[in-house]
């Protein structure tokens, strides 16, 4: 069995499941927002929607889903192309740098999202 310490859930099945479930949550969130926007909203209505705790929690869930989804996807891309097999030992260094970069960006987006929601 192949070990990988940097994958999201450490098991292929859990990563796969998280990828599927998070996709559904993200889709549901965008449909919800899309539906609201189609109905036509002004600033005060928009603000009341996001003042409600349920919408904030839903949005946070969507942000966290997006973060997990992005990490699993980016991790798969990195372990396909930035590898020792394809580029020699340099691949390992590049991949680690890429993974740190990705996790930083995702982390910043999550914090920023929380700030917007509760700020």
């Amino acid at each position: 069995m192949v070990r990988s310490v940097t994958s999201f859930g450490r098991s292929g099945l859990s990563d796969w499941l998280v990828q599927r479930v998070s996709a559904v949550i993200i889709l549901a969130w965008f449909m919800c927002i899309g539906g609201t926007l189609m109905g036509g909203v002004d600033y005060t209505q928009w603000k009341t929607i996001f003042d409600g705790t349920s919408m904030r929690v839903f949005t946070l869930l969507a942000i966290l889903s997006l973060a997990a989804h992005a990490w699993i996807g980016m991790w798969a891309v990195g372990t396909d192309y930035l590898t020792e097999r394809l580029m020699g030992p340099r691949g390992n260094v590049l991949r680690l740098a890429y993974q740190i970069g990705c996790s930083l960006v995702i982390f910043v987006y999550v914090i920023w999202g929380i700030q917007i929601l509760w700020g």
Partner: protein
Amino acid sequence: MLQVSIYRYNPETDAEPYMQDVQVDTGGKDLMVLDVLEMIKSQDTTVGYRRSCREGVCGSDGINMNGVNGLACITPLSETVKNNKLVLRPLPGLPVVRDLVVDMSMFYAQYEKVQPYLQNDTPAPAIERLQSPEDREKLDGLYECILCACCSAACPSFWWNPDRFIGPSGLLQAYRFLADTRDTATDERLAQLDDPFSVFRCHGIQNCVNVCPKGLNPTRAIGHIRNMLLSRAT
């Protein structure tokens, strides 16, 4: 005259691979690609390729014809030639030993990983382990694989991770033993597959299904394995 372009590489004499252009007189017949190769070899004996049964049974002459993997012996020219041109290359993604001959070690190593033999720890019956016709039917579409590697060598996930992703061919065989009611090692087999690479590198693009010369469907088998893993874990 058919215009054939063949990948040539002899690591002992060539600095790098090159394409050799050859004209072949097919006499207007719809020959198999292997016939064309034999005609070329009768002119130039240095051309290297594998073949044995010449009837789609042994799986030794998997090559890339005009960009598509297949068995040279059962691929008629009418099926692959476009604009009177035939480009022959070794199976992609595997190291070239010489010309159209590739090193299959990585492919076999993955096959070995799935333990492709029946495991049963119950006492052996006097004559044989029986199976109902319905249970036997579950192995149809799985046991027919001839290990030609056309599928795995067409799979991008296998190109990038041939050491960690088992690949369509190996996974089809993994499922062949998971689906066998006489096998008692199902749980151990599944435990070996539950990492992020062995099964889950498959992204369902179905290149494997498109090229399998035996008409098998590795993607479907991979889906079954995933479902077995899911029901085992939840």
